[in-house]
């Protein structure tokens, strides 16, 4: 399946950009850009996505390296957890009023 944005006729490969806002937080996807190589992608990502101290660390990864699930099959693909509400604490009602539980 083609990666969105990675269309024929695009001169440079597509990169996805992830930024860590602060130490202790995860890198979060912030957007994408096109660049001729990894180094330029990183520099462009800094200029484009961190003009206001939005981050302390950036990842760039070629979109073509990402494997994704199929949006049209999300029902089937994510079926397993459905109907397993006993995985959530609030399933257990009898203990609801008991302190510290």
């Amino acid at each position, binding site marked *: 399946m083609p990666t969105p944005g990675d269309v024929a006729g695009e*001169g440079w490969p597509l990169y996805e950009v992830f930024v860590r806002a602060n130490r202790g937080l995860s890198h979060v996807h912030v957007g994408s850009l096109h660049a001729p190589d990894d180094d330029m992608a990183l520099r462009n990502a800094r200029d484009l996505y961190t003009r206001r101290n939005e981050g302390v660390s950036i990842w760039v990864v070629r979109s073509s390296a990402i494997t994704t699930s199929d*949006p*049209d099959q999300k029902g089937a693909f994510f079926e397993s957890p459905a109907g397993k509400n006993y995985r959530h604490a609030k399933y257990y009602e009898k203990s609801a009023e008991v302190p510290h539980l």
Partner: protein
Amino acid sequence: MTLTAPDASATGDLDEAELQARFDALIEADQRIEPRDWMPGAYRKTLIRQISQHAHSEIIGMQPEGNWISRAPTLKRKAILMAKVQDEAGHGLYLYSAAQTLGISRDEMTEQLITSRARYSSIFNYPTPTWADMGAIGWLVDGAAICNQVPLCRASYGPYGRAMVRICKEESFHQRQGFEILLELSQGTEAQHRMAQEAVDRWYWPSLMMFGPPDDESPNSAQSMAWKIKRFSNDELRQRFVGMLVPQAEVLGLTLPDPNLRWNEERGQWDMSEIDWTEFNEVLAGRGPANAQRIQHRRDAHEDGAWVREAAAAYAEKRAARERQAA
């Protein structure tokens, strides 16, 4: 135009009507459409047109202000203006990226812009003769843009909405810096005050035209609203904008150049003079004061930058070849 084909294995067993029903249900439930979802061709086409026009507007929008960077009155003003112009470039890039998820390439969009086959906001075809125009652009043009853009953060197409969230966050500094330029001029010497007033006189009507034609003459609006790309009509947004400007103009000590502007209690809206749509249509048709100059400048910049793009590509290719050899 190359369009990303929906994956055959995923959607091949559904016919068009079922796909359309699924799409309609997502829109109805106020869910977002994402790049790899099936979407009607007309929805994709409308988005490509709207998002690329929006991106072009940001890119062309760098010119009227870029023009003033070297002449801004102080070093601090220069730095602020540079930051703002850099933001516009960034906004253009966020939007080009969003449009690219719909299957159009960056090169195609650039080509459409520099060959005048794509539109951009006609507001950028007006000249900026004085420093006060920087203030009026920030206050009025960016103000109108924000008014338009805030509802677009909830646009039904995910990448567009996300780009808009980022843009709106950054845009509020633009409007405030413009307001403060005008405030300072307005409270300055008599000549400075007059310069501020003249800039407001120049930009007031064009900024109201940014919301587009009146609702009864805006054929595409209804469909865009049904698709939840657009959330409010042109006239609704224009009214909202004028309502915000009136008290702000009082703080500035400047006058909005419309003698008929007043709140109509009975109708619950602002009465105003008729907008000169002939002017709007002239500018839109490419006969505005600076249309040719803006496109020429963009084309020159693109052509002058060709060697940089070629060098970057050649360097990337050389390094990749070296890595292949080493492996």
